[in-house]
């Protein structure tokens, strides 16, 4: 039997194409409402997708201010939490901007999302050197210097280390409620993490007890070589954007090398998903026409940050099989050009096609996100006496 592949979807506003908000059914005036997102998540869950990622940025505009781009500007962690009680099985992976937020806050927020969703939480750690975004915080400036990117990646790695240590700072059985001795908690099972890095230090322990998954899934996007090192050293899940199969092989190698260099004890090694922008229709010519129409709505041709697929559901299934045939690639993260249309085709046609080929699950088989991904629940480093291992 051929191995099952993983399929996830990235949700970014009305779609990944900047013209998507003008498409029929986009309902862009409802982008800030819970009902809008609930409908999308219900669709993704009905399609048995492993998880959704929710895009996030503090920037309103990419570049100069303009009126022809749709925005919701919602905090994706709160959005994921709002959606968690309305779903049962699908994984929820919002985005946190490591460059500008506090690891202590993000750690407890994602732990809480894990409680609220009964073990379906993850987080994409994002870095940004955008000077406009930095000006919203007023704390740091980004000179035009390539060393900055490497430094942000190293900060993100520290961020991943700290949130993981905070999740482990409570042993699973720290709460004892021992009426006889009057102790609610066994303080010997709570641990200071005493992390000190170049950008921040955190004492710990966490304020929130260890979440259901032990450690929610940490994900990162591999746009640059430095990001691939972050994936290799600190993430459970990596999103890579090869244009050719050879690129994917190289990315797998780079992540693997970073992983073994770090000698890390976390999930071994990170699962890699190929990012794929998708414009779908019943025929290839109809798909090309849809893309042209989206470009026209956007006022200019759009080039995605990842490889693009424009074609039929069966063609996309072929494409998914081609990418996942690369040793070390576990699945794809599809970026629907326009939601709901492309999401609809993914759940109603692409998924059934993969199921016909026996390449995709017929039902959710595990209650947690780690379970969907085949990742074990990590043991606690402090309980195991391995506190020094990041």
């Amino acid at each position, binding site marked *: 039997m051929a191995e099952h592949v993983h399929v996830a979807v990235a949700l970014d506003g009305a779609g990944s194409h900047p013209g998507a*908000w003008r498409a029929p059914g986009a309902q862009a*005036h409802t*982008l*800030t*409402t*819970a009902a809008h997102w609930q409908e999308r998540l219900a669709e993704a869950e009905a399609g048995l997708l492993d998880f959704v990622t929710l895009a996030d*940025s503090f*920037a*309103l*505009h990419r570049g100069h*201010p303009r*009126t022809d*781009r749709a*925005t919701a*500007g*919602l905090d994706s*962690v*709160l*959005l994921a*939490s*709002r*959606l*968690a*009680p*309305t779903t049962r099985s699908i994984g929820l992976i919002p985005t946190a901007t490591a460059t*500008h937020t*506090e690891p202590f*806050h993000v750690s*407890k*927020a994602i*732990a*809480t999302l894990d*409680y*609220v969703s*009964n073990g379906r939480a993850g987080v994409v750690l994002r870095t940004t050197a955008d000077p*406009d975004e930095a*000006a*919203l*915080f*007023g*704390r740091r400036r980004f000179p035009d210097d390539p060393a900055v990117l490497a430094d942000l990646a190293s900060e993100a790695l520290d961020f991943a280390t700290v949130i993981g240590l905070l999740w482990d700072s*409570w042993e699973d059985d720290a*709460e004892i*409620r021992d*009426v006889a001795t*009057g102790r*609610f*908690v*066994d303080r010997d099972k*709570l641990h200071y993490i005493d992390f000190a890095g170049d*950008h*921040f*230090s*955190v*004492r*710990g322990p966490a*304020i*929130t007890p260890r979440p259901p998954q032990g450690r929610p899934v940490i994900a990162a996007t591999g746009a640059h070589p430095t990001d691939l090192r972050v994936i290799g050293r600190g993430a459970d899940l990596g999103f890579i954007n090869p244009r050719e199969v050879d690129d994917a092989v190289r990315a797998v190698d780079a992540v693997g090398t970073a992983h073994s260099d770090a000698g890390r004890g976390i999930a071994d090694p990170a699962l890699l998903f190929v990012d794929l922008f998708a414009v779908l229709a019943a025929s290839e010519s109809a798909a090309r026409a849809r893309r042209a129409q989206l470009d026209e*709505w956007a*006022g200019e041709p759009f080039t995605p940050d990842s490889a693009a697929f424009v074609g039929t559901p069966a063609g996309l299934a072929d494409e998914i099989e081609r990418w996942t045939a690369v040793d070390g690639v576990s699945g794809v993260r599809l970026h629907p050009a326009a939601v709901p249309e492309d999401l609809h085709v993914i759940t109603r046609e692409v998924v059934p096609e993969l199921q016909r080929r026996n390449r995709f699950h017929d039902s959710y088989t595990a209650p947690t996100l780690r379970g969907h991904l085949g990742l074990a629940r990590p043991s606690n480093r402090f309980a195991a006496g391995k506190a020094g291992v990041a």
Partner: protein
Amino acid sequence: MTKQVHLAAHFPGVNNTTVWSDPESGSQIEFDSFVHLAQTAERGKFDFFFLAEGLRLREQNGLIYDLDVVGRPDTFTVLSALAAVTTHLGLTGTINSTFNEPVDVARQFATLDHLSGGRAAWNVVTSWDEFTGENFRRGGYLPEDQRYARAEEFLTAAATLWDSWRDDDVLADTASGHFLARPDAGEFEFTSTQFDIRGHFPTPRPPQGRPVIFQAGDSDEGREFAAATADAIFSRHATYDAGRAFYTDVKRRLAAYGRHPEQLLVLPAATFVVGDTDAQAAELAHEVRLQQVSGQTAIKFLEQLWNRDLSDHDPDGPLPQVDPVPGENTVAKGRASVRMHRDPVAVAREWRDLAEAKNLTTRELIIEVTGRQSFVGSPQTVAHTINDFVQADVADGFILVPHIVPGGLDRFVDEVVPILQELGVHRTDYEGTTLRDNLGLARPAG
């Protein structure tokens, strides 16, 4: 017109008032506990649900405090999830202005307001201390005298960000291709002693315009801050005389800011015990106090005031003969209460006098001096007392803190609320869709 009683539900947290040893006591962390309490409050047509936050585990004598509930979830994340399982209940969260940045907090509250259809409220607190700062990038860098300055500037910055969008800035006109009505939607610049920020705020104006603003500090500075900027005060004065004095004082301060008394609601935190009869309630209330203050808890309380190790002291004996250690409290970390004891030696003297006069052991004395329940009695007694207090301007309503999770509000909602409704002082249905509607607060102009 008869004043209406506002009611809110406080999810009980890490204080010793939360009884965890009772067989009825459930999880403080599992989401089901939050759902139960919030849905019970909504069944009782409460105005809002209130959640505090903690940013560092408390310590005493250099050790993590282990006698009370330890651990809490993240405030924003829980409130957002509760928006999915409630439809009218306001969602109020304590968020600190020292270890956060305005753009992040303003965006989180705007998000919560959008995703709840206009039910978000922010209880602004200034900070704790360097001890808490050890968990954050900023560390404990902020001198104490700058904390209110930062809080005020933080709140002004947040208001600037929310107001940077007009209500009609989102056009989403698919025909013309204009999503925004103007390119400078969200544009802002804010400079002050603490902040130098500019750009475009990413989130469109939320349903309430701005979330409802609560203030919790009790100092003179805190009261002025509330009079100038807050929509509601979360106070700790739930007794008749102290409540009336506080109420009169803060309402008097509003005029200086061109505001009217009804623009600032006074909502003290209040505890309660409901029994079949007044006598049975009194008995229950005493049992609850015994659960709340064990012998060990009494000693730990004593140490917080005495500022020294008293682990050898007998809780069933008299108070210690030695005096408290004056000066900075080195025993208890992460507690607001230690700062309330301005003169520990004088307080200790009062306690000794009280213990002697009433012939109390250490534990009995601590039970006596650490907050008895605000409302104790039969459903009739509790309902009438609450209503009498509100009509007498002790408060505009109460934020009820049950001592048990998750069922601690059940009896109040089932038995006390109907009496208040019969008296015509508590709603039988929500007035509007937003928290501002239900609190009778105007929506700020954009």
